[in-house]
């Protein structure tokens, strides 16, 4: 249970910097999700923190202590790699006691610890089994128990749900969240799946180009993504990159894949993308002469029923190949009888367009 601070960390892999002047602070006791695409250096970062790989440069500080030169043995970090690697020749109980023996705990203490962690991770019934005799989700819980049993300073989880089948993912994610809160161990959770960060994170850190690009609660990042790419990684609907921007006579012309959009004000800062929330669209059945609105024409691609009253429809844009909108609407707006392939006219108020 420590506060972690990582300062200007760098690492090369095959002569390419994959972690580049990296900075990160993890608050004592929080569950921080590190979100980034596959191959962005997340796993390498975990291995550096665990002491398995040496960085080219940089320091890692636990509380006030610089542990950069500590061996993996001395760091007391709970490391759970992506594939659930349990020691195949040891029973679950022996897997857990391995780290405790390494830390020279007495027999009684070891017994006590195992009982404690087995209860928290709910693996009491598995202690006598070999790893080959338990399921993927159970293996992950055992791996977690093994890492937690030594009461680590910091818990490192590498894509813990990636090898679990879809039906078990959510419950395991919530189990991890519960265990983390019960033990209060500072945790760094690495994933490429933004859904997981929504499910369990205290804060989320987005990583690409070897750096953390934005950090904050999921709500903060969702609301104010720093750039188009971050909005995209967070899985926001209806975001598009901005190709170029021109301002004239107090208006701004924004070029995007969904066409040239005119906004009735001057944009003074650099923007990387725009977002139109699904609820900002209005379906219009009669041609309107209103000239302040932004108008799109498209065809309904599919209709998803959210509940009796509300629908989300996916609309193919007529003039822009391969681009589509997600539009939220109610029964009345949708005009019962609408079906796939029906042409629709959509209006959006310029004030509803969010600049990223």
């Amino acid at each position, binding site marked *: 249970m420590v506060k972690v601070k990582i300062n200007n960390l760098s690492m090369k892999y095959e002569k390419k910097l994959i972690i580049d002047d990296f900075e990160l602070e993890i608050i004592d006791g929080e569950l921080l999700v590190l979100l980034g695409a596959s191959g962005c250096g997340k796993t390498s970062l975990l291995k550096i923190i665990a002491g*398995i790989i040496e960085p080219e440069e940089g320091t890692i500080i636990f509380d006030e202590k610089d542990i950069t*030169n500590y061996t993996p043995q*001395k760091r007391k970090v709970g490391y759970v790699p992506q594939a659930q690697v349990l*020691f195949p020749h040891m029973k679950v109980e022996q897997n857990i006691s391995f780290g405790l023996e390494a830390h020279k705990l007495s027999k009684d203490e070891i017994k006590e610890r195992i009982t404690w962690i087995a209860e928290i991770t709910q693996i009491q019934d598995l202690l006598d089994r070999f790893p080959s005799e338990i399921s993927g989700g159970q293996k992950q819980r055992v791996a977690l128990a093994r890492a937690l049993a030594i009461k680590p300073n910091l818990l490192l989880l590498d894509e813990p749900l990636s090898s679990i089948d879809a039906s078990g993912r959510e419950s395991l994610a919530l189990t991890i969240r519960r265990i983390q809160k019960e033990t209060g161990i500072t945790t760094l959770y690495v994933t490429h799946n933004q859904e997981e960060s929504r499910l369990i994170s205290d804060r989320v850190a987005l990583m690409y180009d070897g750096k953390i690009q934005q950090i904050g609660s999921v709500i903060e990042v969702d609301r104010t993504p720093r750039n188009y790419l971050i909005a995209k990684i967070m899985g926001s609907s209806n975001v598009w990159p901005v190709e170029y921007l021109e301002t004239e006579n107090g208006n701004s012309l924004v070029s995007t894949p969904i066409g040239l959009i005119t906004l009735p004000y001057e944009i003074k800062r650099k923007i990387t993308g725009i977002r139109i929330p699904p609820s900002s669209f209005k379906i219009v059945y009669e041609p309107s002469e209103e000239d302040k609105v932004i108008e799109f024409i498209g065809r309904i691609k599919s209709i998803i029923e959210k509940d009796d009253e509300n629908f989300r429809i996916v609309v193919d844009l007529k003039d822009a190949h391969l681009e589509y909108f997600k539009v939220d609407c109610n029964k009345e707006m949708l005009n019962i009888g609408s079906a796939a392939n029906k042409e629709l006219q959509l209006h959006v108020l310029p004030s509803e367009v969010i600049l990223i």
Partner: protein
Amino acid sequence: MHRSIQKKSRNFEGLSNKFIISLSIIALISFLLAFFYIPIVRIFQTALSSDSGSGFKVFWETLSDPFNLKFLGFTLLQAFLSTVLCLLIGLPIGYFFAKYEFKGRKLIVNLLTIPFVLPPVIVLIGFTVTYGQGGWVNLLWQNITNSSNVLITIDGTVQGIILAHVFYNLSVIIRLTIPAWQNIDNEQIEVSSTLGVGKGKTFQKIVFPQVKNAIISSSLLVFIYTFNSFAIVMKLGNFNFYTLEVLIYESFDLLKFSEGASLAVIQLVINSLVIILYLVVERKSRKMAEGKEKGLKTERLSFRGKDWKSIVSLSLSIFFVFIVILFSFAPIIAIIVKSFIPKSPGDSPFWGYSQIFTQQKITPLNTNTIRLFGNTLLFATVAAVISLILSVLIVFVLRNRYQSIKKYQRSASESLVSYLIILPMATSSITLGLGLYLSYSGLSSYYNSVWIFIIMSHVLISIPFVTRSILVAYNRIDVELLNVASSLGASRVMVFRKIEFPLIKRGIIVGGIFSFAISLGEFGATFLLARANYETLSIGIYNLLGSQTLQISTAMASVLILITALCFYLINKFGDIELKV
């Protein structure tokens, strides 16, 4: 203050690992220098500088001697023919065992492998009893045809040599191609047929390219083994035919060391080229097999629900397999049966066995048989222990992932060792023996310590196989296991004791028994080095081959077969035999 202590501790972990690795490398290099590289250098020295002074003279003379050239050609030709014949018989058999599932399948494949682990003298005596002048096949033929003509002559003929080589090496092709066939994803074949491609074309375009490398690499192995054949050609060649290996021995026997060494250099060059080619192809075939989950669909061996065409072809396949099993077992059974047939009616069937367990010396042996047994078992035990220690060290240097994970690259010491152990793989046992003799026979204590050199030659011959057995087991260890273990606080020693060792234990057991079995039957180097009191069973049996009664030699051979079979049984119990080097 705290930081500096911790820095030291990091260094300590790193240092203890470095220390272990450095010590291993020093041990390995000293062993290889003393018992391999110095002897090899000595061979080059002897070949390239003669007493008359002018450097390459003897070498060129040896190389351009028509007699030598003729038999260099013969060595290559017989190796090629033996390999082709092994392929012709082995490939269909391998495919049969990959495709059909039936009771006892694994047992038969294992039994077919026994010839490979048999000592060469066993093959010789088995062939003599089965196919020799008065052997059972010829007796049977004479009875059937009611004439005195023989069906087959193995003494002094090419066919004898090649037949023995096929007997010996068939299992290499069978065993090494079975996994390649099994690795072919059946869905690929199904997809190919839905794309409208016929069976023949599918085989040519989809199946064959995936088994090609396994076929080539197993062929290269058979080529290497037969190219360096010694005992079989020495006996069955009967001064009509020589392999390079026999020529080297003959030169040594006539004290023409420079000539022998020159031939050894040529042999070493050819061997090295083939081994390098083999390593390249083997690597490719291993890559091909990586990451495959689905395999060939196996079929139950059954005649039910088949049309007459399939029934006929299946029957023919089974008959073919049966013939090959017969071929692989006849010599072994013949030896055992022969050992119980009395010399003259009324004598005890156990006479041969009673003779070998007495203290008295049997002519023409140089020492009594109990001593032969003792030597054989002692040498094999010591050789197995040393081979194991060295092989574990080699594996640790080659797969020092514990260190290399921190660096993401292969260390220089690792590369050095991996190259240093290629050459011993390419060195024949006669060359090895010759090198050891040339390097150390000048020592005053040589004749009393010759057993050390015999054992060391056995160690060098078995190390590639033992290393391979352990490496296969070690490669299965997920490196993340070691990472997790160290982050859980385990020291280098604890990681080895609790994780690595238990996971390679079976590989170590298999390697140890295999080394024991190899030493048990090793012929070439022992034959060249051994003097009277240090001879082994193999040498004893060989010396008895020319004698009137075969009852004593077949009895000795039967005991050797029994021990070898026991080793093989144990190997299969703990893991799998590695025919590859």
